[in-house]
């Protein structure tokens, strides 16, 4: 049986502030797959994730992005999310005055409403929240604090994974969730991601480091450079990149 295609991106071009950043991306994620996107700083990885999530700062120029067979570029940010697309932010945003628990309860219930499900009761929600916070070893006390306000760097990253665990997305795009984490935190984040991993879901890890991929073994590894995917391979590619850097790939690409 053919695997369900979750994400299908063809020749996607997009700009920010009039500057073309994505210069024709082709990318496909089928159910059950984990993809890693690597590449030097400034190559457009976050831009790619932002365009898929619908960040209004980025403008679509041409090409398509289909999610579960639908054109997502036409959908509102919130509907993309409610359809199960999750972005773990490279820089999670602080939201003063809004508690984590209020924020997540609204998010979970909006998603349920969209699917025609009853909202969770306060007790059900609390139980779910405690369970999922435990998975990423996030102190339950943080749930009474304002979203990301005064969280440490590591807490912010684990909080992204916690939210992912709450929302159980169909497709998770994790933008450098591993950056700045020590080995312990990395292991916790990896546990959260591996818990989500299933035959039904797709996961895209944007990362700089091979080390995350020791914990979450990807099916495919891609290199994004100057707004294009210039090379794709398997886990071996990330090991080679770790040893040799990107230069050999970039030289090969630019000599073409």
């Amino acid at each position, binding site marked *: 049986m053919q695997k369900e295609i979750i994400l299908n991106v063809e020749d996607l071009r997009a700009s920010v502030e009039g500057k073309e950043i994505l210069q024709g991306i082709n990318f496909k994620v089928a159910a059950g797959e984990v993809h890693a996107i690597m590449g030097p700083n400034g190559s457009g990885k976050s831009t790619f994730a932002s365009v898929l999530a619908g960040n209004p700062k980025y403008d679509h120029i041409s090409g398509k992005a289909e999610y579960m067979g639908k054109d997502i570029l036409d959908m509102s940010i919130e509907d993309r*999310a409610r359809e199960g697309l*999750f972005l773990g932010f490279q820089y999670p945003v602080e*939201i003063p005055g*809004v508690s984590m628990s209020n924020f997540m309860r609204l998010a979970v219930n909006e998603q349920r409403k969209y699917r025609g499900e009853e909202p969770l009761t306060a007790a059900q929600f609390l139980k779910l929240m405690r369970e999922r916070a435990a998975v990423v070893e996030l102190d339950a006390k943080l749930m009474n604090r304002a979203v990301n306000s005064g969280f440490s760097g590591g807490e912010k990253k684990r909080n992204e994974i916690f939210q992912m665990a709450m929302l159980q997305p169909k497709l998770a795009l994790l933008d450098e969730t591993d950056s700045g984490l020590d080995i312990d935190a990395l292991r916790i984040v990896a546990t959260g991601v591996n818990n989500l991993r299933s035959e039904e879901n797709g996961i895209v890890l944007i990362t700089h480091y091979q080390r995350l991929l020791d914990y979450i073994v990807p099916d495919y590894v891609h290199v994004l450079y100057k707004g294009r995917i210039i090379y794709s391979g398997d886990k071996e590619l990330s090991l080679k990149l770790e040893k040799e850097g990107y230069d050999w790939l970039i030289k090969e690409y630019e000599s073409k």
Partner: protein
Amino acid sequence: MAAELKSGEMVVSQGDKVVRSYLMNEPCDVSVVVEQGAQCVYHILCGGELQSDVKFVLKKDSCLKLILVDVARGTSQVNVNIELADSGARFEFNGLYIVGRGERKDVVLDVKHLVADCYSSELMKGIAAEDGVGRFHGRIYVAQDAQRTEAYQQSRNLLLNNSARIFTEPQLEIYADDVKCSHGAVVGQIEDEAVYYMRQRGIDEKAARNLLTEGFASEIVWQIEDEQYAEQVHDAIEERLSEI
């Protein structure tokens, strides 16, 4: 239940500890003496079009925490007058107003440090929507003899759209030389990044903006020391925000 605030004079007796919660539904002229060593919390929730004067005199080592919330429909002005009249007195202020279409709200806070060794801190928050106009005038007066005064003022404001206006006017009159004093004012808008973040979690734009605005206001509600009353204030804020 919160009581109606009426014009007249009140006293918080020496050494007393009280928490008083009021609804100010009509104009009034109130004057309160906080006697030596008394510690009190006054909550005032405004309920309509009015112009009112509220005055507190703080005696030796007394402490007043005042929370003033004006999120009612209509135009109003509240003048708050504080006299730190004897040493060791402490005053803490938390204020919030919301002003909407065709309305104007003024809060005039006058804090007088008349003697040495007193402390005051003020946080005023304003939210303006539509073509609403808000104004906070905060005077801090420190008399020549009021050495070792500490006086702090913060004014933080949120404009919900481009035609709303907020004026924030600090006025510092300091005649003593040994004082710690600071003031700051910010007038800003809701952060696009925060709205985007919330929408990425499935919350629609309007709900996200409301939650952020409520969050901005909630910092004041958290200061309320009467749970039932805090609930009432919270509901009043929520109701008002749903209209604007």
